[in-house]
């Protein structure tokens, strides 16, 4: 068995994880280990982002991080952790400029200033980007390049952490499945950072990479850490639905709405946002939670488009303006049979981001010694609804902080093989393969459908209770799920561990959603349509020793 040792272990190599690695090395950590289920710097959410990155750079007009904070708190519908939100807004400009020095290629005006546009929910132009739809790939490539230059950072791809290892109440490392060999690997670490992103992959319609199944939340819960705001899953209102589009991220339409003001229309071709309190006219200003709710309601009322969404139309925009705004994207759309001058596309809400996550302090330290979190895996900064453009700065700012904190962490407890034995044995045993009536992959598909139907953008008590019951059955079925033989690159073995984590994450969302008997931000209850002052507080989720997940407002 492979035994690894490191000062700082970073689980997940997307934007937050890579930034954490750079920062841990910069802060003096001699050994940094950056690992990913997928390929380092290729998976996760950052690489999928197209636009935009919010930071009070004041390049286009006067701005201040406190104004960015005001907008973040307003979008969060009263639930933001103000300490974390302040850290995010105050340090975002430094990180954005550092990325600029690393040649990420922020779009600039003719004057040389970084271009900033006004995204929904922002009081002024604050969101920078890399043209055309290239922000995430450019950020990921830049961080990959920086990480690869640092000798003290060791990268390992295709290593899936299945369990954190606890000794004397502290996290002292992890046990991982090496996908290629199917063998267990132990990793002794002084500090461990969870940078696994969110859980949007547990929804049928999602804009996630394949590795966003909520692993980090399950790992944190099993290690004794708490989660917060887990009921708040952000549904991106205008995810692409039809016609079939490949080679593009399904959330690609947003920047074009900023630039061109695309119109949202119901199945009969009528505008509808105004009926849900939107004041949007030509500019695109409707916040994500309201737009998602409006579209979901229109479809539920039978006024949707043929594939169950609404229309997004640019037919009123002259062809020259389309060409100028979309650039080379026009050809990519044409290859998918889409001509915006002639016909609308269909869009509908798609799981995009998770506001909830691991409870940390401003140093990104959880309550469990040795355990830190970074990026989307962190909960609280965005409250009940994330402001557009805050996800990538969150990855960078929290990643940088987590790396710095973890580098200076002192050892609380030493590694003990006995503490890792159960997790190691589980990988060995399941790797033998076994027959069974149900496959983990099939259950994962069922889980995604269940979450989409019963724990989606519009919820009610009956649906949530049904989901909880089924999640319990699926957790029971996990014990007997079939695993194909052959250890090497065994997809069904990887599925089993993904399902184990995803079921825990799904239960955390569902329990919290059931307990919040009101509507607020991204959490909308058909049976409790209004916000209630009684619920103007966050809810935390924990796991009991026996493995049951509990949610509650008491702190």
């Amino acid at each position, binding site marked *: 068995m492979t035994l690894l040792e490191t000062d700082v272990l970073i689980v997940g190599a997307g934007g937050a994880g890579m930034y954490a690695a750079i920062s841990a090395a910069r802060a003096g950590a001699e050994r940094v280990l950056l690992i990913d289920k*997928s390929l380092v710097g290729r998976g996760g959410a950052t690489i999928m982002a197209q636009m935009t990155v919010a930071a009070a750079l004041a390049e286009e007009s006067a701005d201040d991080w406190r104004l960015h904070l005001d907008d973040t708190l307003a979008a969060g519908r009263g639930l933001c952790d103000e300490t974390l939100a302040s850290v995010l807004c105050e340090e975002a400009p430094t990180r954005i400029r550092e990325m600029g020095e690393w040649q990420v290629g922020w779009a600039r005006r003719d004057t040389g200033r970084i271009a900033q546009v006004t995204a929904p929910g922002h009081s002024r132009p604050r969101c920078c980007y890399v043209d055309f739809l290239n922000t995430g790939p450019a950020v990921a490539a830049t961080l990959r390049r920086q990480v690869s230059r640092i000798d003290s950072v060791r990268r*390992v791809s295709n290593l899936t952490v299945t369990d954190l290892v606890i000794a004397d109440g502290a996290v002292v490392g992890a046990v991982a499945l090496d996908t290629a060999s199917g063998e267990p690997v132990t990793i002794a670490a002084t500090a461990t950072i969870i940078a696994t992103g969110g859980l949007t992959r547990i929804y049928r319609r999602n804009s996630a990479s394949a590795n966003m199944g909520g692993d980090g939340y399950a790992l944190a819960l099993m290690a004794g850490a708490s989660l917060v705001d887990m009921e708040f899953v952000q549904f991106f209102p205008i995810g692409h639905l039809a016609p079939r589009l490949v080679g593009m991220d399904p959330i690609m339409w947003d920047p074009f709405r900023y630039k061109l003001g695309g119109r949202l229309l119901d199945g009969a071709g009528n505008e509808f946002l105004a009926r849900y309190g939107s004041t949007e006219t030509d500019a695109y200003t409707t916040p994500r939670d309201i737009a998602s709710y409006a579209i979901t309601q229109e479809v539920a009322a039978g006024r949707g488009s043929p594939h169950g969404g609404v229309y997004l139309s640019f037919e009123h925009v002259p062809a020259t303006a389309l060409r100028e705004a979309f650039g080379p994207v026009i050809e990519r759309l044409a290859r998918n049979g889409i001509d915006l001058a002639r016909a609308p596309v269909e869009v509908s809400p798609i799981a995009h981001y998770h506001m909830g996550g691991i409870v940390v302090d401003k140093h990104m330290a959880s309550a469990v010694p040795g355990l830190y979190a970074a990026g989307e895996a962190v909960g609280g900064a965005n409250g009940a609804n994330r402001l557009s453009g805050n996800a990538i700065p969150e990855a960078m700012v929290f990643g940088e902080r987590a790396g710095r904190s973890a580098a200076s962490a002192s050892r609380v407890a030493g590694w003990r093989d006995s503490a890792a034995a159960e997790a190691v044995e589980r990988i060995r045993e399941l790797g033998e393969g076994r027959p069974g009536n149900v496959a983990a992959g099939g259950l994962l598909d069922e889980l995604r459908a269940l979450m989409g139907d019963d724990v989606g953008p519009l919820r009610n008590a009956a649906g949530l209770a049904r989901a909880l019951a089924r999640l319990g059955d699926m957790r029971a079925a996990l014990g007997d799920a079939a695993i194909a033989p052959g250890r090497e*690159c065994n997809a069904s073995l990887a599925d089993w561990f993904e399902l184990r984590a995803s079921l825990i994450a799904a239960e955390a969302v569902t329990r919290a959603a059931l307990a919040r008997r009101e509507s607020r931000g991204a959490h909308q209850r058909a049976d409790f349509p209004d916000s209630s002052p009684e619920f103007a507080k966050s809810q935390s989720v924990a796991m009991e020793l026996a493995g049951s997940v509990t949610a509650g407002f008491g702190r």
Partner: protein
Amino acid sequence: MKTARLSIRRGTGDEPARYEEFSVPFEDGGTVLDALIWIRAQRDPSLAMRYSCISANVCKECTIAVDGKVVYACTTRLVADRTMALDPLPGKRRLRDLVTETRSPRERL
């Protein structure tokens, strides 16, 4: 319902070439990656392949050979009228089925 047919090279390491044929549902605009995901979910959960971003074509992990040509599975459309041959990337060490050793030497254990 229309179907598409895929002949997929199976097996680990240096095992002799063995192809397995699958019929998958064909929908307009459907891709080879859609078909592989469908096979894993509905026919054979052990089918090994790489993918991450799922059709956005940003992760570049799903490179394989289709009918002898190196392509991304996520942007290659299915065809209904003949059998498509799927092979792992040529010139790379094969690990299992369509998975080859595409990790940088510095990113391995």
